[in-house]
């Protein structure tokens, strides 16, 4: 498409009006539940979002769960053995991965594990959510999982560090507490003291912070999806940015913000389940 054709198209969609006017129109339509039409795809924005939502939930959901599980587990362990070699190594690795640009890590993982370098075979697909033409339940599941590995790994790598650090510091706050000595005196194993007594107490501040950081998950998703051709909302956002497709950008922005806010509301509902003090207080 040429720039002039694009201009024509944007004129059709009234996108060449001043941004303020557009935004006013947008709010007006939004009030009627209308997210507008993407001029790039000629499709209602809402429909586009719904079409791409599943893929994102599948990738981001899996990755967030894994990252949270890994981060919380490692965070608890490192705090429990603070100052030790494992603590220092884990913290160092986490901080390093935290400093890695997501898209760059994705590119490197593609080069190493999808293409293969030296003795490492290129086991995993370079992108996409599934291979076309695979049939049968087992091949389909295997194919889906194989496609999930690298994007999920990238996302987990950049996300787990914050969970680790949050859990570690929440747990360190609990470390001197007397009830842990009581638990130990009861004859519980060390790991049980950690799991049954220390972790449940450290969980509330952790979960609160984890939910506050959901924005980083969205950012990670945009980059990982763009690098791995994952057909989700992140790719959609990336596509919308390049033109830019303003109705789609606005719609996605609204959707991302709304989902993060909704998740935070959920977190507030979740807190009393984790801590009885909040329940009565």
């Amino acid at each position, binding site marked *: 498409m040429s720039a002039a054709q694009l201009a024509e198209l944007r004129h059709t969609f009234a996108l060449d009006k001043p941004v303020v006017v557009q935004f006013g129109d947008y709010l007006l339509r939004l009030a009627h539940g209308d997210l507008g039409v993407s001029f790039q795809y000629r499709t209602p924005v809402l429909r586009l979002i719904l079409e791409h939502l599943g893929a994102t939930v599948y990738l981001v959901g899996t990755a967030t769960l894994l990252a949270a599980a890994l981060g919380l587990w490692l965070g608890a362990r490192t705090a429990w053995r603070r100052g030790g070699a494992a603590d220092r190594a884990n913290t160092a690795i986490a901080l390093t991965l935290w400093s890695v640009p997501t898209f760059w890590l994705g590119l490197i993982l593609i080069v190493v594990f999808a293409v293969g370098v030296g003795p490492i075979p290129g*086991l995993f697909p*370079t*992108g996409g959510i599934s291979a076309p033409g695979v049939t049968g339940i087992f091949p389909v599941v295997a*194919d889906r999982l194989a496609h999930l590995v690298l994007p999920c790994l990238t996302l987990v790598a950049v996300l787990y560090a914050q969970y680790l650090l949050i859990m570690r510091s929440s747990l360190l706050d609990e470390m001197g507490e007397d009830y842990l000595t009581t638990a130990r005196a009861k004859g*519980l194993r060390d*790991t*049980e003291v950690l799991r049954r007594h220390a972790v449940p107490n450290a969980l509330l501040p952790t979960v609160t912070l984890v939910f506050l950081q959901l924005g980083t998950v969205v950012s990670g998703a945009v980059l990982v*999806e763009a690098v791995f051709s994952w057909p989700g909302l992140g790719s959609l956002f990336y596509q919308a940015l390049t*033109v830019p497709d303003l109705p789609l950008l606005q719609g996605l922005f609204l959707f991302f913000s709304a989902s993060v806010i909704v998740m935070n509301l959920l977190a507030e509902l979740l807190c009393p389940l984790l801590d009885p003090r909040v329940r009565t207080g």
Partner: protein
Amino acid sequence: MEGTGHIAEGRPTSRLPALAIALLLAAFLLAPAPFGKPAAAAPKKVLTVATNGSVDSLSPFLAQRVLPTEVHRLVYDFLTNYDPKDDHAVPAMATSWSPSPDKLTWTYAIRSGMKWSDGVPVTARDIAWTYNLMMTNKDAATANGNFVANFKSVTAPDDSTLVVVLGKPQATMLALDIPVAPQHVWESHVSDIGTFSNDATFPIVGDGPFILSAYRKDQYIQLDANPGYWRGRPKFDQLIFKHYANQDAEVQALKKGEVDFAGDLTPAQFNSLKGAANITLNNGDGKRFYALAINPGATTTNGKPFGDGNPALKDPLVRQAIMEAIDKPALVNKTLGGFGVVGQGYIPPIFSTYTWSPPATETVGSDPAKASQLLDQAGYRKGPDGRRTTPDGKPFTLRLYGETQRAEDAQNATFVKEWLDAIGINVSASIVDQATVGDNETAGNYDLAFDSWLVNPDPDFVLSIQTCGARPATAGGSFPGDNFVCDSTYDQLYAAQISEYDAAARAGLIKRMEAQLFTDRYVNVLYYPNTLEAYRNDVIGSMQMQPQPNGIYDGQDGYWSWWSATPGAAASSSSHVGAWAVVAGVAVVAVVLAAVVLLVVRRRSTAQERE
């Protein structure tokens, strides 16, 4: 006494679910090994093409992007096709044609015996219905309306005759690139033709060499061979366009065999594939020109000027100086890595009929000394700081626009800025998104801009955008043109060529138009990038190139490559896809199992350790 610990509530249960999940996973993933290749009966031969194009719509009336347009070429037949050797018009739905002596009536004989994929016969009425819909319905004209703009009427007196009556003579009547839709299917969609995207039910009824059988947005488009196609059934059973958001992934996928064809490679990617196992490379001529547009001062169709283009650019000496400063061969060597042809005429050399090159005496470029001298002559003097000023003493600064998404723009901008700097012209380069470039161009607020067009075998469209009539009707309004060029000599030649039905004579006229554009120096072709492609020769035995001998496979003006592709030794039912997926799956399970085992063992061994 260790035993007492085991009674602890929750402990044994915490390990069990982990093991259960791991075992479940193992079962899921190990199972495909025995069942991996089901039904040994005649494996499908699949050809997978990597693409990074996106689909705006699958409706033949709406789709404007490259990928869906290419798909429509494969699933709907057209009135005529282009010869794979030299792009001349050859029969497709029409078997023969003849214009009336007054050049205004074209009569086509339509092939009989063609069938839509649902069994209904294809007739001239389908063609007439499709064309008429585009002529009468603004929405239906979205994608291809320009082809029928000059039509007065289209009728099908019988099933095998199509008659088109024109308003003015039109030389492009054998280049009507309009997918013909089945009337019996589309009649019910006339009311929502502007929004119906043709992806509701599969397979989609068509009459091309392939049938569109499945589509997942931003994932893949799947086409099945049409066994009843009149020119012969494609040799591959299935053709898949697999979407990649980034080009590097395409190349990786090709190396691994996830896809069998990758087009539109960058020079770096092309070079990296040299010597790769089972990969054949194609360095084909490009169908695209890449130009530097110089704003002649934006005007409307009735000559009213607008925008803030630098008036200095109206001076032919200044334009010539700019072009003298630019080293086109350097751009081809550096930006294209040598994979391109230095720009001359407006039409790329792949279309040899229309190729024009300036006489040796007129060749310009790579001469900063001459550029400086020209600027001096035009009154743009160099100050003590080496910067030039306009004749009325203001600093001479030009704005250069390029698009972020066109990788070469950023590189070329860097070069052009340095060259113009060297002759004392200050350049501020903005590499921005397409929409911003479009806004600035529409408003006439630019001095220099990079500009690139794909050219069709019939160059009428790219020629038309440089006519006076292609300017906007109102200041700042959208316009079908490109750079506000308005040259009466050029316009006269344009009018002459469109009514010239003699191919050789028409080519002569077009070459004169190119010469005129070249001397005006408003649209300066810098180069024609080659089309760099690669495919797996173990999967694809052979396929037809268009044109020959230096043509391309992907993005042809016909369906020759995919229609003619023959399966190679390794072509079979996406086995390469399934196999590695299973391997990868097994690897995942192995890692998970190892981790679980390690955990359990460690837990055992630490049981006696210090807490």
